[in-house]
């Protein structure tokens, strides 16, 4: 994993969070450094800030795509202007996330991107007795189908991408409703979805992996 980000503190936070997920992270703080790293190594995923000292992140993206490299690229940018987003995705970025973001959200995007790249979109995730088929969007517990709503499945994957991490309610709310989350007074809707998710898993006989952490959020333990 290569993190191209000129802000050392942010790069450090990302590295810290992702290292716990057993990702190996390297950082590049300038345009030149980024090009050097890309020339020297291959990565599974590249996080790319658009405004860099010494050049524009979009040029790095162009370089990567020009060489027909396989890396997945997620643009991290403060420039949440629509044109930049469209331009980035047109050049061939796989995803786009605007600052400020929750680390859990970033981890979920990376997780999903790497899965897509590695298993060519036909992958199955396993957590002991729980089996998630990402292509068919089905969940089996002990070999039996459990019907989840789209949002419940979304949450399950989000937790699996952030296993053994505390995910705050705010992060979950923003993941589920996007921009409008902080306009809503209560985040009770998050609680409602999680309650249903837990109930369905328990009814199917799954172990309770999802722990409520008082005051802060939830944690998927495995």
């Amino acid at each position, binding site marked *: 994993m290569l993190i191209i980000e000129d802000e050392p503190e942010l790069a450090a936070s990302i590295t810290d969070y992702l290292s716990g997920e057993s990702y190996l992270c390297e950082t590049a703080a300038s345009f030149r450094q980024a090009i050097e790293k890309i020339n020297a190594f291959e990565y599974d995923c590249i996080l790319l800030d658009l405004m860099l000292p010494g050049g524009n992140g979009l040029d790095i993206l162009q370089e990567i795509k020009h060489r027909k490299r396989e890396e997945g690229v997620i643009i991290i940018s403060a420039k949440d202007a629509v044109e930049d987003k469209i331009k980035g995705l047109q050049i061939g970025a796989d995803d786009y996330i605007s600052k400020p973001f929750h680390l859990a959200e970033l981890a979920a995007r990376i997780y999903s991107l790497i899965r897509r790249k590695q298993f060519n979109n036909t992958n199955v995730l396993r957590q002991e007795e729980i089996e998630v088929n990402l292509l068919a969007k089905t969940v089996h517990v002990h070999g039996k189908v459990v019907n989840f709503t789209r949002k419940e499945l979304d949450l399950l994957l989000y937790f699996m991408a952030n296993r053994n991490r*505390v995910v*705050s309610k705010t992060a979950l709310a923003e993941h589920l409703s996007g921009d409008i989350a902080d306009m809503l007074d209560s985040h009770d809707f998050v609680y409602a979805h999680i309650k249903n998710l837990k109930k369905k898993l328990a009814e199917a006989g799954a172990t309770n992996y999802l722990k409520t952490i008082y005051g802060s*959020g939830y944690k998927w333990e495995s």
Partner: protein
Amino acid sequence: MTRLLNKPLRAFILYSLVVLATSIPAYYLIIDYIWRLQLDEHNQLVSKKTQNELSTLSLNDTLLKQSIELWDRIQPGTALEPVSQAEMRPDSIYTVLRPNKYDPDGYINRFRGLSTYFILYGKPYRLIVETNVEESDETIAAITVVTVFFFLLLLGGFIILTKRISVRLWKPFYRTLEKVQHFNLSRQQNIQFEDTSIKEFRELNDALQNLIEADMTAYRLQKEFTENASHELQTPLAIIRSKLDLLLQSSTLTNEQSDIIEQATRALSRVSRINRNLLLLARIENNQFADRQQIDLSGIVNENLLMLDEHLSNKGIEREKDIDDAIQITGNRTLVETMVSNLLLNAIRHSPAGGKIKVQLSARQLRISNSGKGPLKEEGLFQRFSNISHESPGSGLGLAIVKQVCNRYGWEVSYSYSQDFHVFTIRF
């Protein structure tokens, strides 16, 4: 609105009308004066000639009497008669109106007369010579007809000349005007004015050119500032957020500390949103959403409602919708979506639990109502940060953005309160 060249045209026409109108009495007085002068001279000549003729004839009394009678009969404009010595007067000139006996219709005619006294063969005589003068009304009528004819001639001439001048002389001006009208600041394309040999127009073009260049620079700087501000603010915000996320992972957190982190995270979300919305407002004002397209407004409203459905039911809010199908409007998709979602979120946030929301959409208007307790202060409702309440803190910019989007497309947004409902209406 009148065209520039019509203004002097109107003044010219009015002026010539006044001049020609005053010329009518002037002409009349002059013509009448000349006329009278000429007739007086003529009458004088006739009188002199008569006296002369009669005195050279050397007639006796009887013959003279016969001659005078004959004279009176064959010279209708004159009257010669003997008078007593006492009746002798100095010569006099006069104007009289009386019927003309030779006029078959018996109209009143104007006559200019000379009454003169003279001595013929030792006896005093009076000779009256009268000549028909054109009546004043006839003179005036004739002059008026001629004047009106010339006025019409002038009028036609002015109009044709003005048109010619308009086309030729003002051509560079209208070209400049057209270019300025089609100028779009957000496109950042400089204008090249055509060269002109007229000093004023060249100065105008140069001044406009400078103004536009300054405008474009200011616009570019503002745009850059927007982007820089975004970057500068959002990066530290991203750092704080990531640090809070990391702090949350610490296994030694007490419940109290977790609470504090959660509260800080929430406040940070609000700051991020305010920042994002301020940037959005700046971008709208900077005209950075210039592209327009046909948008399916019914679709956007329905999608937004669907997305918010669970939040409605969580709060126990009843929903009533009356949305016409396939309502199309022209605008920028991002802006219209933002406007609709801001209005709907506003309605949900300010509805009491168990309240009601009504959404109506027709070709002419979008109306979103939510139940409330008492009307809001209308003043400043759509201004930035004016309606922040501590009970339900939002970004304080939602309605300002709605207003800004409406302004952009010439729509009219209004607020009213009726039957316990806050009603926001947008007329297209």
